[in-house]
């Protein structure tokens, strides 16, 4: 069981900045994110795109903002559970919470901060009849362990980087790789496109374009797929089918936690961004209130106010005044100390 003071769900910019603000109040944070890397939308959607409305940064790439936020919070030693989605929450007798992920990892904290953005990123599933029936029985939307595909007949659908990269990788693992894409052109790095063409010439990848998978076949496990090209449908034997059509964010299981939801977002009190369940806060793009603006800078503000409220909740009656980092410096949990250099006073003789 992972124990922490504030359990943050979502490791996007708002969640990462919470680590810093909580750290100033000597509160430790742990973050859960469905993506395998921190940064949220900044890493999944706009890694290389510039942002122009972060105060003090006329222009910063989303990837660099993530890296800076990680650096800024580093001395407060946050923990991370990445690549797992927060699934269930159980309130304990003492008012604290246990949050369990889809992989069974349990986290215990008195304060929950949902900084889930637009939700957890889930794979886009093609509309094929009975596709759910074959999930984990020949159909997978992520490749967790490439060894699963060793000496198998694999069909991959999609035209982006992941479809190209996995086709290239699996060409050496699987007995047969077929890549199906709706267009002749691919939306991937030039290197990858060229490599796939090379492997096609070597008969290591069976490339079918412009075509679509139109049906799945098999009794208890996938046995084949129908591929339709120019109006003609052909059956291809397949042990595994991997549709790679990108990710789309969904509010997901958090929507069933008993929180008040409005417009696909969690309603909060703007006093401290607490939800209708005491001890659970919602900050950043995931929340809603009158006048809400989905901006990173608003998420930072909400995180700051939320941490003050969490401190009061955890330390009832204990006196505290807001401190300025320029005056007080920063004491890291790792024993580090940052402070402004002392002014040197020299007398003029």
């Amino acid at each position, binding site marked *: 069981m992972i124990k922490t003071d504030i359990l943050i769900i979502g490791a996007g910019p708002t969640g990462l900045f919470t680590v810093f603000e909580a750290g100033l109040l000597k509160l430790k944070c742990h973050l859960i994110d469905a993506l395998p890397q921190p940064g949220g939308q900044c890493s999944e*959607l706009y890694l290389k795109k510039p942002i122009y409305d972060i105060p003090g940064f006329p222009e910063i790439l989303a990837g660099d903002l993530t890296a800076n936020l990680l650096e800024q919070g580093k001395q407060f030693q946050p923990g991370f559970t990445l690549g797992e989605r927060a699934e269930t929450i159980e309130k304990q007798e003492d008012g604290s919470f246990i949050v369990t992920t889809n992989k069974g990892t349990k986290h215990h904290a008195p304060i929950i901060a949902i900084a889930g953005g637009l939700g957890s990123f889930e794979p886009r599933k093609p509309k094929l009849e009975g596709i759910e029936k074959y999930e984990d029985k020949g159909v997978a939307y992520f490749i967790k362990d490439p060894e699963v595909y060793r000496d198998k007949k694999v069909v991959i659908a999609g035209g982006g980087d992941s479809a190209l990269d996995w086709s290239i990788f699996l060409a050496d693992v699987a007995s047969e790789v077929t890549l199906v894409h709706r267009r002749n*052109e691919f*939306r991937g790095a030039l290197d990858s496109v060229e490599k796939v063409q090379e492997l096609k010439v070597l008969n290591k990848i069976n490339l079918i374009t412009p075509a679509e998978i139109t049906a799945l076949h098999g009794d208890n496990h996938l046995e084949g797929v129908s591929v339709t090209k120019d109006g003609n449908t052909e059956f291809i034997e397949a042990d595994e089918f991997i549709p790679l059509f990108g990710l789309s964010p969904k509010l997901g299981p958090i929507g069933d936690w008993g929180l008040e939801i409005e417009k696909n977002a969690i309603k909060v009190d703007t006093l401290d961004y607490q939800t209708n369940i005491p001890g659970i806060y919602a900050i950043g793009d995931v929340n809603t209130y009158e006048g809400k603006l989905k901006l990173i800078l608003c998420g930072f503000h909400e995180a700051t106010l939320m941490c003050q409220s969490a401190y009061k909740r955890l330390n009832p009656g204990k006196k505290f005044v807001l401190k300025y980092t320029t005056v007080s410096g920063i004491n890291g949990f790792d024993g580090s100390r940052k402070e402004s250099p002392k002014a040197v006073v020299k007398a003029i003789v």
Partner: protein
Amino acid sequence: MQDVTIHITDREGKKHTVLAPTDMAMNLMEVVRSYELAPEGTIGVCGGMAMCASCQCYILSDIEINEMEYEEDAMLAEAFNVKENSRLSCQIPITEAINGLEIELAPEV
């Protein structure tokens, strides 16, 4: 500058006629959001960068609109429910030239 009129059929099939300003650098997806014609979180998820296809629409009138650029075309190649007249509404700027345009929002995925 004058406002333009846009006819939008929402995902439930309901028709709306709305006015959109031409001087606020808006795009069609933002107009749909501003009139709340699709639930928040189901449209314009990527913010308008042709990276998610949540704002896909079908163009129903033959008014000439801006041509598709590479990123939009590539995103539509990956999207679902794509038809001949599919466009990403985030890539259609509101200009006087599209006055009277008729669109239908593609289903949510």
